[in-house]
């Protein structure tokens, strides 16, 4: 349940001092309820009031920061079980592992791949978020050596060893950068908890396949005064994927619906475990690892560790994450107006589409890949697709006529002919009447547009 601005206002000092940058305490309260400002900006608030408000404003799932400064990623922060109820916060952090038995050249190559993995889609550059360093050797010197190299990485780190001495050794190197300690278990709980406290780092709690025990251990960590915890209930694959899912869902439901303090933390999944003992070919392994990741992404994973680095494995993962974490409350729109593709002249054709982001970027992709030379009029339909805006009335003769005037397209081309999307056929006459332009009904799918332009014009 989201807190209201009034609930928050009641606990504010009501001085209207303006230190926070807002005109009044009520305005500040409103911004706080929308998560658009920071409580710490309220200077007159006493520590007790601060604590009360922090608690009130705390999301169902605690936000945990891994890393520091410009090398950090925030995970958790969710308020709801289903994205349509509000939105999901803080996209799942995508992490790739390295280990301390790699040859130097292998390590360098792997770091290079991880740091350079990127994929652009719908105007957004999608990248990874962190690197997990595994103490595969069990040897502290090797671990330190690899961790020292990773200190220069552009990404925050996850330190993976169950040996508290080796963890301490690594923390001496990078402990000031807030790496995630992976992991506290039932066997090392006290020591890892102590390290998390000493170095002020978040700590992952790894309790495979036993939520009851996880609750007890999480409670112990909390009793120790530790606030930043990440829960790894175990990633079981194959026939075990059902249990993995059940555990993830139960944790999140306990956090959101029951406000169970021991489970109000981000959840960690390790799709890399798909490769543990697997004898399948490399391609199958990568496909399956991505599949496990997709399962957990859909059901509440806040951070995922991969072993595979193939771009074709990561592109679908990055794309799914982008979709899941799109805010359903905001229309997905691009700026309306006139766009140019290729080399345009006064003879160039003029196309029409809507400003729904998916529609626009699909058309854009098609025009670019088809190497079309054309103008594209993008109509403000409040972020609606062609068929939807047709039904909703945003796409009509008058709105298109207005767009023609606003963009001054009549002074850029020597003709008055426009190609509209096939789905917009019902308003072609209306557009002709209101704008005085000649309208041709184009293909239903924009992938056919470049060929259409070559053939028809």
């Amino acid at each position, binding site marked *: 349940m989201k807190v209201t601005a009034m609930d928050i206002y009641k606990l504010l000092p009501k001085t209207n001092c303006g230190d926070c940058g807002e005109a009044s305490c009520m305005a500040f309260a409103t911004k706080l309820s929308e998560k658009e400002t920071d409580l710490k900006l309220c200077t007159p608030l006493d520590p007790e009031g601060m604590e009360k408000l922090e608690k009130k404003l705390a999301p169902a799932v605690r936000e945990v920061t891994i890393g520091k400064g410009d090398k950090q990623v925030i995970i958790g922060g969710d308020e709801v079980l*289903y994205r349509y109820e509000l939105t999901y916060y803080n996209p799942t952090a995508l992490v790739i592992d390295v280990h301390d038995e790699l040859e130097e050249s292998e390590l360098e190559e792997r770091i290079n791949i991880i740091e350079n993995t990127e994929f652009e889609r719908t105007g957004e550059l999608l990248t990874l978020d962190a690197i997990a360093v595994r*103490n595969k050797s069990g040897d502290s010197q090797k671990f330190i050596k690899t961790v020292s190299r990773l200190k220069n990485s552009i990404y925050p780190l996850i330190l993976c060893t169950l040996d508290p001495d080796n963890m301490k050794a690594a923390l001496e190197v990078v402990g000031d950068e807030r790496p995630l300690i992976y992991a506290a278990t039932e066997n090392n709980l006290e020591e890892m908890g102590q390290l998390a406290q000493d170095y002020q780092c978040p700590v992952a709690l790894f309790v*495979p396949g036993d939520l009851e025990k996880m*609750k007890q251990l999480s409670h*112990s960590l909390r009793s120790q005064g530790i606030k930043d915890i990440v829960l790894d209930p175990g990633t079981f694959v194959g026939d*075990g994927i059902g*249990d993995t899912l059940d555990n993830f869902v139960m944790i999140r439901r306990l956090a959101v619906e029951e406000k169970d303090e021991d489970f109000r933390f981000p959840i960690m999944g390790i799709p*890399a475990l798909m490769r543990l003992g697997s004898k399948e070919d490399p391609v199958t392994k990568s496909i399956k690892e991505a599949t496990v990741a997709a399962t957990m992404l859909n059901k509440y994973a806040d951070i995922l560790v991969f072993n595979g680095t193939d771009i*074709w494995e990561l592109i679908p993962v990055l794309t799914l994450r982008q*979709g899941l974490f799109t805010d359903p409350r905001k229309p997905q729109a691009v700026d309306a107006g006139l766009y140019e593709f290729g080399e345009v002249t006064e003879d160039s054709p003029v196309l029409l589409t809507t400003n729904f982001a998916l529609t626009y970027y699909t058309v854009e992709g098609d025009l670019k890949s088809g190497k079309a030379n054309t103008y594209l009029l993008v109509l403000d339909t409040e972020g609606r697709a062609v068929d939807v805006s047709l039904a909703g009335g945003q796409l009509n003769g008058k709105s298109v006529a207005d767009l023609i005037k606003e963009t001054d397209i009549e002074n850029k081309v020597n003709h008055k002919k426009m190609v509209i999307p096939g789905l917009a056929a019902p308003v072609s006459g209306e557009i002709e009447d209101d704008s005085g332009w000649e309208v041709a009904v184009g293909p239903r799918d924009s992938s056919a547009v470049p060929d259409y332009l070559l053939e028809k014009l």
Partner: protein
Amino acid sequence: MDKMTQLLKLLENTKSIEINDFRMDFDELELQLMPAVQQVVQQAVQTRKAASEVLPMEDFKPPIQEYPGKVAEVQLGKGSRKPVYLGGQQALYRFEEAQPNAPVVTFDVFDIPMPGLPRPIREHFSDVMDHPGEWAKKAVKEFGANMVTIHLIGTGPKVMDKTPREAANDIEEVLQAVDVPLVIGASGDPVKDPLVLEKAAEAAQGERCLLASANLDLDYQKVAQAAVNNDHAVLSWSITDVNMQKTLNRYLLKEGLTQNDIVMDPTTCALGYGIEFSIDIMTRTRLAALKGDKDLQMPMSSGTTNAWGSREAWMKKEEWGPTDYRGPIWEIFTGLTMMLNGVDIFMMLHPTSVKLLREIGETFVKDYMTTDLPDISDWITQLEG
């Protein structure tokens, strides 16, 4: 405290106890272990004067909910078909109650050779694409299809303009070739589709196929009547709109169909092309069903094949890697996401995608924590690569 610490240390180093016959003793020790750890920890904290109060803790209780409604069960396949059942869920998740029927995959087969199919699919079926019967047989025999969807694309006025009678012949060919239930799809022409489906339904009388589809843009009454008269079920297709789905379902129920004769297709937007809209619609639809909305209690279907329209699935682009892998993975992601949000039946194209989707789907009918789970506690050191 020292004794406890010693005991804990002792336990750490005596893993063999686990498999001894002293199971009861070990359980007792295990029970004492946790409070002991807490105690140790809490005392340590107290000495540091931090967070000294003992936090209250309640017992772990699985968050199981009660649902007033349930999803209707739809049987497909009768007569000479092996039946397949869809839906029947009484809960949202497995840990609440395992679902009675595993998700089902139906392989896409076409009545024409479909040169436009992506290469990774054509390479599996190119030898049988001239004969829908052979195509269907291969999907069942070699790739274990639960069902087959025969798309009568050739009836499209702009495709081959096959007559409804010719379409009925294709249906007969496929019925002869395989004994799995069929989904019968038309060409997407709102005027001709009802006529095609009517003839196809007659040809498959008593075999309980799923007629795809009825929607608000065509004569859904004719489609519904074809189902009622020949004992088939109907796919009720709406476009990412829960209210439109509800309206259409109501109309179909008025035509004499029951909840057990309807499967809903709320539209699957592919990964990267609006999949989040489909997630929201599927989630809301299934939650409404379990809350008791009788107009939305039918099983759901996904046109997962839509994934192949995504350029990431088929477009040649070196920096994205081979399309041989991208295509199947795009289809898996699209289908899997729908499955995790309640979908019961999947129309798919690629054998690898089908296999992986089914592997995960089959765990949905098992009870929580009844599978042998491997020991993953040492994955940090054991994982190669």
